[in-house]
C-alpha cells in the first residue's frame, strides 16, 4: 500500500488538508511579527507562567533556572526537562519558547518534538559546539538567536534564525550591554543605508556576513527579521529605553521573578513597552513596584564570567 508517498498519506487516513504549506520562512518570521511591541518573560514553572500570562506577556520562555541563578550556581547549564516545559505549555495559551545550547541540534530536535513555539539557541546556556551553530533551516520550528552586532545577526539569519535579540549580559540586571548591542545593530543598519552598492561588498566582507543579506538589509532599511532586546532589562524604564532606541519588543529574564513583586513589575513592564513614548504613563506605572532585582554591575564582572562572548 505504500508504493507512493500519496498512497501512504491516504492509507494513514489524514484529513485532506491538501495544499497547506508549513514551516516556511514567512511563517517562522511571521510569529515573531505577532510578538512585536510585547514582552516575553522567563519562567521556571507553571505558576510563574500563569502570572506572566495574566500580566500581559505575549509569550513565555520556559527554563529551569533564570540567568541570575545560572550565574550564581555555576556548572553546566543545559536545556530544561521536557516534562517541565510541557507543564508550562499546558498552563498557558500564549506561545511558549525554550532554550537549547548553542550548536546542540539534538536538544533543538527534542524541543521541536514536544511542540514548543520558538527555540532560543542561547548563549545563556553552556555552548555545546565551539564552531557550529544549529543549522536552523532544517527545522520547522522557528529560532531566535542573540547577536551583539550586525554581522553576528546576519550570520544567524543565514543559518535560519527567524528572529534576533540583543545578547545583553543576561542575569545581571544591568541594561548597558543590551543598549550597546541594540545600538550597534541599528547603527550599522543606518550606515548601510547611506552606502553605495559597491561599498556593500567590502562591508559584507568586513563584518563577516553573507552579501545577499547585507544587500537585503540595506534595501529594507532594517533587519529582514524582527529584532528584540534582551539581557539585563529590569525596570519599565529599561524596556521603554530599548523601545525608543528602536527594537521591536522586549525579553525580560531574571528581572521579573527575581524582584520583590513579580506580578506588579511584569504588568508595569508590559505597559511601558506599549506606551514607550508616553512619559506620564511610564512614570505612573513605575510607582510602587517594590524591590527590583539586585543586579551586578557589568564593569565589575570579569571577562570570563560574561555570557555575551559565547557564539560568534
Amino acid at each position, binding site marked *: 500500500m505504500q508504493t507512493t508517498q500519496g498512497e501512504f498519506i491516504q492509507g494513514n487516513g489524514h484529513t485532506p488538508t491538501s495544499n497547506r504549506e508549513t514551516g516556511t520562512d514567512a*511563517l517562522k518570521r511571521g510569529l515573531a511579527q505577532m510578538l512585536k511591541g510585547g514582552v516575553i518573560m522567563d519562567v521556571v514553572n507553571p505558576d510563574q507562567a500563569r502570572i506572566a500570562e495574566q500580566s500581559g506577556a505575549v509569550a513565555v520562555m520556559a527554563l529551569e533556572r533564570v540567568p541570575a541563578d545560572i550565574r550564581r550556581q555555576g556548572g553546566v547549564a543545559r536545556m530544561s526537562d521536557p516534562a517541565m516545559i510541557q507543564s508550562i505549555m499546558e498552563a498557558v495559551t500564549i506561545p511558549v519558547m525554550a532554550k537549547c545550547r548553542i550548536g546542540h541540534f539534538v536538544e533543538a530536535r527534542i524541543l521541536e518534538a514536544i511542540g*514548543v513555539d520558538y527555540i532560543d539557541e542561547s548563549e545563556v546556556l553552556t555552548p555545546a559546539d565551539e564552531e557550529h551553530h544549529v543549522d536552523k533551516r532544517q527545522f520547522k520550528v522557528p529560532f531566535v538567536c542573540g547577536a551583539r552586532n550586525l554581522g553576528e545577526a546576519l550570520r544567524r539569519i543565514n543559518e535560519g534564525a527567524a528572529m534576533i535579540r540583543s545578547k545583553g549580559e543576561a542575569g545581571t540586571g544591568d541594561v548597558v550591554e543590551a543598549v550597546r548591542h541594540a545600538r550597534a545593530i541599528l547603527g550599522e543598519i543606518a550606515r548601510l543605508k547611506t552606502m553605495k552598492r559597491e561599498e556593500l561588498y567590502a562591508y559584507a566582507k568586513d563584518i563577516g556576513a553573507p552579501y545577499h543579506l547585507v544587500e537585503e538589509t540595506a534595501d529594507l532599511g532594517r533587519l529582514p527579521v524582527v529584532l528584540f532586546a534582551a539581557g539585563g532589562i529590569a525596570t519599565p524604564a529599561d524596556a521603554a529605553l530599548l523601545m525608543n532606541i528602536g527594537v521591536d519588543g522586549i525579553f525580560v529574564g531574571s528581572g521579573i521573578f527575581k524582584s520583590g513583586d513579580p506580578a506588579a513589575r511584569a504588568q508595569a513592564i508590559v505597559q511601558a513597552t506599549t506606551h514607550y513614548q508616553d512619559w506620564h504613563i511610564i512614570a505612573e506605572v513605575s510607582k510602587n513596584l517594590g524591590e527590583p532585582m539586585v543586579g551586578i554591575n557589568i564593569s565589575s564582572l570579569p571577562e570570563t564570567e560574561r555570557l555575551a562572548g559565547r557564539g560568534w
Partner: protein
Amino acid sequence: MAKTVGVLALQGDFAEHAQMLQRMGHRVVEVRLPHHLEGLDALIMPGGESTTFGKLAVRWGLIEPIRQFALSGKPVWGTCAGLIFLAKDVGRDQPTLGLMDIQVTRNAFGRQIDSFITPVQVRGLAGPAFMGVFIRAPRINTVGSGVEVLAELDDGAIVAARQGNLLATSFHPELTQDTRMHAFFLSL
C-alpha cells in the same frame, strides 16, 4: 479617496497594516488610548496576542470607546488576534469587545509548527484566491444570524466573516503584498 485609518497599536503587527494602508494612499493613526479614535474613518485590530490586547485595553479604558466607534457604523476589522478581540464568545474568560456574533476557538489549528499558508477563496473578492497566512490562528466555529460567512477552508473551518460594518479574518493579509482585503474593508 484617502481615508484616515486607525490601527490598534497596543501590541502586534500594527506596523505591517500601517505600511499597507500608506502604500494605498491612506493616512494612518496608531491607537493606544481612547482619544486616538477621534477623527478616524475606520479601525483595524492587528495580529498579536489577544490576551495582551485585552489586558491593555481594559487598563486604558479602550473597550467601551471602541465598542461605541463600531456601533456608530464605522468599519472595524480584526485579523487573527483582532478577530478574537472582536468576538462575543471565545470559549474562555478573557476581555474582548463582544461586538461580533461569532463563537471562536483560539489556536484552533495547533501550535506554531502547525501554522500554515494556503489559498483562500473569499466571497466578494475578485481575482485569484487570496494567500492565507495562518499563524497559531483562530477559527470561527459558529456564526449568528446577522453574520455572513466569507471564507471557509476545506476542513469546514470558517476563516473570514462579516457582520455589517465589522470584518474578521483568521489570516493575515497584512503579511502579503495583496491589498485586496484592505480595499474591501475600506469599502464597507
